[in-house]
């Protein structure tokens, strides 16, 4: 062809494969997700309301009874100390429901099909969601933490290293639950279904050691409460922030997190790769 009306732009260079591409595209997708979260904060804030309400409820309404139940002359401030680590982890569970919902919503959008036909890193859509969700978890944990401190929570004997470990645990746990939530979002046809199937993420903390010690539960139930993913994480966080006994809960929490993250990752990946062929 001799003449063209518009000078053609130089064709974009073939994108470099491998890690740089993955990082670049995932960052782009992360920016997109954070933009969504910033434009439409109501979902995140709604989910944040649950742990904050529970915190206030258990401290100010049930606080005296609960602390009496702990025995050993514990008062309300002792119960706050007991309660907060569990609620911080519950905050993570609650926030990741938002991830399940936003992934499910996203998958109903035509733009996902567009992403699939572009020469971008395959996993970047999901990685963007996961990193965005983990960042939101961190922010939510900080917000709930601020409320906790405002009503009297104090970390009694945490060193800088223990704070760091606590932060690491929260991020690891958030990553694990997010990958599971992403899988739940991908396997749900719409936002409502995603929010339903993600219920365990907020239900599990209720049957963990978040509100009452495991040994105060019925005997047959204790093994369930003790070995589900939340309890070891809660006990570890408690140990790091308050100096209680961690015992085998540390490696249990890490193992649970790694296992859930791996399970969620492979589950999500296979669902995402299959979704295009689904009708």
């Amino acid at each position, binding site marked *: *062809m001799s003449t*063209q*009306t*518009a000078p*053609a*732009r130089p*064709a*974009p*260079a*073939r*994108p470099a*494969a491998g890690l740089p591409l993955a990082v*670049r*595209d995932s960052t*782009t997708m992360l*920016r*997109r997700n954070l*933009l*969504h979260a910033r*434009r*439409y904060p109501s979902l995140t804030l709604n989910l944040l309301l649950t742990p904050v309400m529970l915190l206030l409820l258990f401290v100010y309404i049930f606080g005296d009874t609960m602390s009496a139940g702990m025995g050993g002359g514990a008062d309300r401030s002792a119960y706050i100390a007991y309660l907060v680590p569990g609620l911080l982890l519950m905050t993570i569970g609650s926030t990741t429901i938002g991830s399940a919902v936003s992934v499910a919503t996203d998958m109903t*959008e*035509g*733009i996902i*099909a*567009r*992403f*699939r*036909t*572009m*020469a*971008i890193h395959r996993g970047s859509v999901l990685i963007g969601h996961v990193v965005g969700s983990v960042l939101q978890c961190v922010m939510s944990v900080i917000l709930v933490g601020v409320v906790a401190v405002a009503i009297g929570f104090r970390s009694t004997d945490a060193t800088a290293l223990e704070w760091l470990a606590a932060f690491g645990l929260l991020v690891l746990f958030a990553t694990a639950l997010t990958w599971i939530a992403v899988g739940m979002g991908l396997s749900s046809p719409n936002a409502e279904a995603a929010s339903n199937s993600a219920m365990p993420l907020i239900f599990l903390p209720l049957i963990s050691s978040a509100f009452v010690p495991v040994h105060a539960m019925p005997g047959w139930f204790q093994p369930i409460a003790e070995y589900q993913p939340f309890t070891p994480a809660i006990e570890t966080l408690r140990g790091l922030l308050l100096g209680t006994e961690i015992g085998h809960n540390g490696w249990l929490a890490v193992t649970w997190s790694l296992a859930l993250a791996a399970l969620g990752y492979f589950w999500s990946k296979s669902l995402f790769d299959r979704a*295009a*062929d689904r*009708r």
Partner: protein
Amino acid sequence: MPASVMPTSSRGDGSQSSAAVSAVGLRKSYGDKTVLDGIDLRIPAGSVFALLGPNGAGKTTTVQILSTLISADGGQAQVAGHDLSADPQAVRAAIGVTGQFSAVDGLITGEENMLLMADLHHLPRREGRRVAAELLERFDLTEAAKKPAATYSGGMKRRLDIAMTLVGDPRIIFLDEPTTGLDPRARHNMWQIIRDLVTGGVTVFLTTQYLEEADELADRIAVLHDGRIAAEGSAEELKRLIPGGHIRLRFTDPAAYRSAATELTEATRDDEALALHIPSDGSQRELRSILDWLEAAGIEADELTVHTPDLDDVFFALTSSSSNESSRGVTEPGSSVNEPKEKAR
């Protein structure tokens, strides 16, 4: 094994002999349902190709396969010289796709959508902003650029959709039913946009349900029916396959219908609808002579419509002539399954 029959396009040099898209024996089924039953295509670079067919014919499936969205069960295809299954990323780098359902992110603004595309095409920041602004301007979206895309009208969304597709400067563009659901003005705008793309040397693969649209835009048209290409050719070639139009007389009184039917022996009967079809080319002269003749014969229909050839007729023609061996052919116009659409004049 790479296709030996197709000369592969070197680099989008626009020469008429190179194929932008070529496919041999594409098959796809979902469960028991065969959607594509062996599709062969060869689309020269720089041309507009229209895949024409009714809902469920397999148009979208074809686009999804050629744009790497789903994989074919059988056959092979090359897009922009790259094998679909061997190097899908290379295919993706060369194509742009605008699907049937809006592929814009409704939660963010039009401008943010454009910048998202620029980032995903790894354009430098400044270049990305320039390209985004340029395309928004070109598609008359500058004013709405700062509003969430979800607030756009159907036509605006479709324009944004195409603008996003163009960010990476694709050499081959797939448009799946680009005008479905648009009002007439937006449809004509879209046609102009597609014509402009072609003058830039881009190859366009579009699907449509409308013969008129294929006629307006495409160099070559393939008619897809039951997962096969029933016919392929230029618009003129296809129209030659279409039988002439007719005049349809509809009666409400069965007695009047029966007496008219015995009178008009050359008319085709549609007993169920109480309608008679008289072959006609639709000219004023012929219409007048038919009216005079009806008048003389004392036949008074309750409704008279002039029927011009449309996609349905193409299907009647193609399915009744090409599939005599199978039972699926509809042999008589007006019989139950594919009631032709009437155009009142």
